[in-house]
């Protein structure tokens, strides 16, 4: 039996969903719900329809077969298990299954995403704790990690969308298997043009993008900053809560910080030389290290922080993450000139995480000067000079040729506070 206001309530519901009701309409909805039991029941039904419609988009419909009530109940249970395997509720079921050995709630989940190419060390950790090394299906709730800067992985969906994961990156596949969260590192998504946008959502703790079609975009996540760079097409970037922030077009990139600050800029060509300007505050998103004014002028000093790669507290300087524009184009003869001070010499390194010239490619590697300040004179300003071509002997050396484009600069003195200060950093 339908109450007379059903149609009106449904009309209000679909506009309420968009937060598009006028104040008067909201009052009307409130009055209906406050005064009419059947209106509240209908509201409940409409909400259930929304949930079911979303899940139906992924799961198969329940077979419509005759049978006894016992058979129907058994089918219902099978259906529920299959359902849980397909949809995000499976994650919650997975939590329960993991914690309490309740594994028979699951059939093997269907994985819409696969790691089809794995270079270096790549792991797929499923929600029940199982780990696959290398290629394989990525079930809902799984986490894919590329370990080491020279590792990379290509995740593909059956519909042609691919996500290239750069080195030292972690991405998790969450709700419904079509929401991917970049926990750390860099992911480049290539989504072919299509009539209906790909239902995939790419997210970080600060930003998300969805409804993708005909785009190539890169999402980089560092400690508290997300950079969304678009090579082709355009995307609407929303905050973590789904509130739209900016439309980013091809050739632009947007940085979003965890405190909500954001900035959209065009991607400028990567220069052939670089000088760190310490006369001004450090760039937004600078990760580790502090700028200080001293009688010798401004300097950059290392500070202790917890390095997730080494899983230890270390004294470091770490730049902002500049995937889209990069710091500088390096060739073998490019020379680093660094004026520095240490209170005492010790184990130390200068590291640059580099990508190829094409920012849509996920290949990355490391250029390192190990023992950078091992032979330094204490309590004295001095210069370190080294060519990029002499920094290639390390286990994560780039597997691609020059030019190499650094997107992250690191000074590391490990667990020792050497009192490192940098006054000038030049690359020519």
């Amino acid at each position, binding site marked *: 039996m*339908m109450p007379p206001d059903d149609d009106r309530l449904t009309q209000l519901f679909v506009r309420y969903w968009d937060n598009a009701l006028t104040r008067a309409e909201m009052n009307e909805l409130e009055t209906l*719900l*406050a005064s009419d039991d059947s209106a509240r029941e*209908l509201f*409940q039904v409409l909400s259930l*329809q*929304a949930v079911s419609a979303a899940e139906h988009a992924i799961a198969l419909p329940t077979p419509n077969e005759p049978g006894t009530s016992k058979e129907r109940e058994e089918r*219902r249970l099978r259906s529920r298990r299959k359902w849980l395997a397909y949809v995000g509720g499976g994650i919650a079921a997975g939590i329960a299954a993991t914690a309490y050995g309740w594994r028979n709630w699951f059939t093997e989940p269907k994985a819409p995403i696969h790691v089809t190419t794995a270079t270096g060390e790549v792991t797929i950790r499923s929600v029940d704790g199982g780990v696959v090394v290398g290629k394989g299906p990525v079930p809902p709730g799984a986490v894919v990690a590329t370990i080491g800067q020279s590792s990379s992985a290509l995740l593909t969906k059956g519909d042609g969308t691919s996500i290239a994961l750069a080195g030292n990156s972690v991405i998790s596949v969450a709700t419904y298997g079509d929401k991917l969260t970049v926990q750390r590192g860099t992911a480049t998504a290539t989504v072919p043009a299509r009539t209906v946008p790909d*239902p995939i959502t790419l997210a970080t703790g600060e930003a998300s993008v969805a409804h993708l079609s005909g785009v190539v975009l890169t999402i980089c996540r560092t400690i508290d900053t997300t950079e969304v760079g678009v090579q082709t097409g355009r995307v609407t970037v929303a905050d973590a809560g789904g509130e739209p922030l900016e439309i980013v077009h091809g050739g632009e990139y947007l940085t979003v910080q965890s405190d909500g600050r954001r900035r959209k800029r065009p991607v400028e060509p990567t220069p052939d030389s670089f000088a760190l300007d310490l006369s001004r505050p450090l760039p937004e998103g600078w990760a580790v290290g502090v700028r200080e004014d001293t009688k010798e002028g401004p300097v950059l000093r290392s500070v202790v922080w917890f390095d997730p790669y080494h899983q230890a507290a270390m004294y470091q300087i770490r730049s902002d993450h500049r995937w889209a524009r990069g710091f500088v184009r390096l060739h073998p003869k490019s020379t680093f000139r660094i004026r520095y001070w240490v209170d005492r010499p010790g184990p130390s390194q200068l590291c640059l995480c580099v990508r190829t010239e094409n920012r849509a490619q996920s290949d990355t590697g490391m250029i390192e000067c190990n023992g950078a300040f091992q032979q330094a004179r204490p309590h004295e300003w001095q210069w370190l000079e080294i060519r990029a071509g002499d920094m290639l002997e390390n286990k994560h050396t780039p597997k691609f040729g020059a030019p190499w484009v650094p997107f992250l600069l690191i000074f590391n003195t490990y667990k020792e506070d050497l009192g490192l200060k940098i006054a000038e950093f030049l690359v020519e």
Partner: protein
Amino acid sequence: MSLSRDIVVKTLLRNRLRVMSVATAIVRDVHAADDIFQQVVLSALESCESFHDSGHVLAWALRAAKHRSLDLAQRRRLLSLPDEILDQMTSEWSDPTSMVWSDQAEALQRCLGRLAAHSRNVLRLRYADGMSANAIASELKRSVDAVYQTLSRVHRALRQCVERELQHQGQLTGGELT
């Protein structure tokens, strides 16, 4: 007497659609509602000793989902229904006799499977892809009002289909819906 963790989890999984529907009604985002459900499960597992029966678990879960959803709705600057209405609905939704959820859900799945492709597409864009009516209108090159009308019509057709299904369980009429 406290409940075992197995019972708590079973209760929550059995009532997943209820909890998600409460959250969905407030945050209007099925993916966020699923996240909220998962948070509620985790939270419930930490509070097992305080539950005395499965009805208590369900009522607690619906309230927890409501609070978390309201927080999210506020962060997203969504207009929310007054607390007293939400309380009333949450209380009614926790009543095991208020609606036969599993039958409703299964009937709904059958009806969704019989929707015309264009109607199913609109629902998918709306609820699975989370698109606003504006975005759908732009995608489908239709007016926003036309999208609202379509959505209203599809919801109505689904409701009528489910009512028929429940009235004639096992004797399905078949055929394509709107």
